[in-house]
């Protein structure tokens, strides 16, 4: 592209204003901002749901809600947090940062990008609408099967299940479109000289995520469609009376569901090393080893799914295979941990909010990973399975490993995106409140789980009372401290100390060569990587 056409482009960069700007935009930054905003709103929605649950579990007995409503809240909480909070946050960062990091003017497929985002609000409405409909006497509320849709319970369920199936379809289409866009962008639009093995780690994390999404979302879509036909069109895919098998659904679901865990985490594994190198003021350690490990995890992710339902019954060789293959994930993951810590080692570290979140993230995600290794053991899993031990484990991976990672990213890039510095003191307070109350919430859940408390029960035996009480208190502090986060983001977007181009002393990478905030069209001249 010659400079004259670039200038020509700039002249025509006028675009609609107000709501039409956001509805019709094909600009990667606008779309990224919408994804991130949507994610933040849904994070608060999903969070309020779980505070309802925790309030009910504050003490034994039924206080606030009936068991059916309880079941609806847990399932919708999970779907919202996974599909409407975590995934859009990662996609939002991808939209904002991938073009900046690889020196591209925009994403490769801008209209697809717009559509990918605008499928999200309708699907969020589909997920939550049954709650409102039930108030008017239509249907009996939202999906009450947990987010996993297990038949025959989901075949028995009300219209909430149908709404959730369609919501998952829309969310799936949105994710696949986002992924295709990212794959095409990364393969075609890198700045001259940026070979694949010079790509920023965040781009690598997302590339593998995108492949996993394209590979597994169609399987989920197929599985829930089979469920839909079982519910309404007389098929028997999951009904033994007609020759089907309810457990087959679990295989299909987790063939998607396990890679989904890595889909949520790989983008975070991409930018955490970038944050570590920035605040350690030294290049990240073991770039190649990290890339290969990401690939290894991506590959292992699709061959370990059955460890989610060891107790459903399967032949001994299958149990052993899924146990050992799951344990094998610890190898590439250990390489990653080693590289992350080696990046910090002998650096010249400072601890601004993003670095605090990144370091806290390594520790807490480590707990999630190690408990995961223990869960792989089939015999012990008979005890852990569907107990609160598992609930605690996956919140260490998905809240600490996912959401706290995303928070590190938000604080890291917010000055770049808005052009203003956020309030550092508030940011640090937010980190400490989050990290401490998170542990107060979930450490007791490990213990009630071991003692024998199953998950997804609205009421519990008296022996679990005090741990649940502690957990609820932690959850409310955790929930309320997120308001600091929201306040900090809003006030940073509205003004504050000007951010420099580089923002952080140790920042490296193309995104830091542009002004803060970057111009509407990023690179007037294509950068060249030596």
């Amino acid at each position, binding site marked *: 592209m010659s400079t004259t056409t670039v200038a020509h482009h700039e002249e025509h960069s006028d675009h609609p204003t107000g709501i039409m700007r956001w509805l019709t935009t094909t600009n990667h930054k606008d779309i990224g901002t919408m994804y991130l905003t949507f994610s933040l709103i849904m994070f608060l929605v999903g969070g309020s749901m779980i505070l309802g649950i925790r309030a009910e579990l504050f003490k*034994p*007995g039924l206080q606030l809600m*009936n*068991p059916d409503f309880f*079941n609806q809240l847990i399932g919708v909480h999970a779907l919202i947090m996974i599909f409407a909070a975590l995934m859009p946050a990662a996609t939002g960062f991808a939209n904002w940062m991938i073009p900046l990091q690889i020196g591209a003017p925009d994403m490769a497929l801008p209209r697809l990008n717009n559509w990918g985002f605008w499928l999200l609000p309708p699907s969020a409405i589909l997920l939550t609408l049954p709650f409102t409909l039930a108030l008017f006497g239509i249907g*009996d509320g939202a999906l*009450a*099967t947990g987010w996993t849709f*297990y038949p*025959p319970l989901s075949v*028995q369920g009300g219209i909430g299940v149908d709404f959730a199936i369609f919501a998952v379809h829309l969310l799936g289409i949105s994710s696949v479109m986002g992924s295709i866009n990212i794959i095409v962008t990364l393969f075609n639009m890198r700045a001259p000289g940026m070979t694949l093995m010079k790509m920023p780690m965040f781009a690598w994390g997302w590339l593998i995520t995108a492949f996993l999404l394209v590979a597994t979302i169609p399987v989920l879509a197929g599985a829930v469609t089979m469920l839909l036909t079982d519910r309404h069109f007389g098929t028997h895919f999951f009904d*033994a*009376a007609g020759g089907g*098998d309810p*457990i087959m659904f679990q295989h299909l679901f987790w063939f998607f569901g396990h890679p989904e865990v890595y889909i949520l985490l790989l983008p975070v594994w991409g930018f955490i090393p970038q944050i570590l190198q920035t605040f350690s003021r*030294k*290049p990240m350690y073991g770039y190649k*080893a990290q890339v290969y490990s990401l690939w290894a995890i991506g590959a292992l992710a699709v061959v370990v799914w059955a460890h989610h339902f060891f107790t*459903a*019954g399967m032949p*001994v060789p299958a149990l*052993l295979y899924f*146990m*050992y293959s799951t*344990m094998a994930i*610890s*190898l590439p993951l250990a*390489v990653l941990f*080693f590289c992350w810590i080696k990046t*910090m080692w*002998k*650096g*010249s*570290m*400072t*601890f601004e909010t993003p670095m605090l979140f990144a370091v806290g993230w390594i*520790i807490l995600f480590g*707990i999630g990973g*190690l408990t995961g*290794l*223990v869960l792989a*053991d*089939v*015999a*012990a899993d*008979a*005890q852990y*399975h569907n107990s609160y031990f598992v609930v605690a484990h996956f919140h260490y991976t998905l809240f600490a490993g996912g959401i706290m990672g995303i928070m590190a990213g938000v604080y890291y890039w917010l000055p770049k995106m808005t052009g203003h510095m956020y309030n550092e003191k508030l940011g640090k307070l937010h980190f400490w409140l989050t990290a401490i109350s998170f542990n107060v919430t979930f450490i007791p859940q490990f*213990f009630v789980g*071991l*003692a*024998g408390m*199953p*998950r*997804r*029960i609205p009421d519990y035996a*008296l*022996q679990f*009372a*005090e741990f649940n009480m502690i957990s609820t208190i932690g959850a409310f502090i955790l929930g309320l401290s997120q308001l600091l986060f929201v306040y900090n983001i809003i006030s940073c977007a509205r003004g504050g100390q000007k951010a420099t181009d580089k923002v952080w002393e140790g920042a490296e990478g193309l995104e830091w060569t542009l002004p803060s905030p970057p111009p509407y069209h990023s690179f007037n001249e294509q950068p060249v990587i030596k």
Partner: protein
Amino acid sequence: MQVFKKIGVGLAALLASLNVYADYSWNFPEPVTPMALDTLHVHNKFMIITAIIFFAVLAIMIYSIFAHRKSKGYKAVADKAPSTAVEIFWTLIPFAILLLIDFVIMGIPAYHSVVMMEDTRDQSNMVIKITGSQWRWQYEYLDGDAKGIKFVSNLVTTDDQLHNKAEKGEHYLLEVDNPLVLPVGEKVRILMTASDVLHNWWVPQFGSSRVAVPGFIRETWVQVEKAGTYRGQCKELCGKGHGYMPVVVNAVPMEEYKVWVAKKQEEQKAASEVKEMTKEDLVAQGKTVYEKNCAVCHQVTGAGLPPAFPALTGSKIATGPIFGADGKYLKDSHLDRLLNGKGVMPAWKATLNDTEIAAVITYERQALGNAATVDPIVQPTQVKAARE
């Protein structure tokens, strides 16, 4: 100052109230089967290994966090690329350690546990069948003297206790009317199935848990080594009553078990005899059956929870005709619905005996605000005939 005093008193009261339950458990409950013992050992061992890894890595990180700070004037030292040989060495060593931990230290005991867990047949002395249904467990003894013993185990915690209107008992939510009775020291093979949705029969102290899948038989086993009462719960989300289907097992010495078997056989024989009953007797017995089995969905008053669970009060089925001109029961009649179920309504023919079905039908037709005039009562003999 007054305020601080109040807060102080409040906190003290809170701590004191926590003390009431003071039963903190930090690990698996005491194991009473070989499998639970094995599971506990495996769990403890793995927890120690992972804790060592965690704290070792954490210590290195914390050292680095304090030592390699800019505020202490520490200058970053760039990593130098090591020579290939050194790099290979430093890669292989941790890999070897991890492989050792994963597949030898953890992997070998795990292998033996899996094989033991799945071996349901060797030296098993008796077989029982457990059926999960919304929201109760049904137990059936399949061989030996106990062959044919079959009963349903329901939660007995009352509605008032659930809603905090009555004081909760010691075994709140973990108490049933008919516990499963097993002899101590015998290996019992368990066949597991379900009648409606997935359930999971779990007693933490047994270390075994298996999903009950409708239409399939899954197997597991227990061998209780110590007499006592053991409690657990369903652990697969199975609908709104998921939290209310506990498992209670009484493990008793062999002699006591034999006495129990003889007594239970007697009782069951007596109950299976059908005789003509008066309307009052049927209604009285029906009330008990109803409140135990039906009230969870159709509610104690018969009002139901529409639209999922229809009201029985004023319902066409509960007041309409049951028998046709030929004396056979009509399709979609009250009796048909109870015996065979439809949709969410479970089939009760395998769960309730003739007298219980007759009683509950009569109760539903003559109580709960209903006073059916067509086929006002159903006799156990009619139910028996209808089954044939």
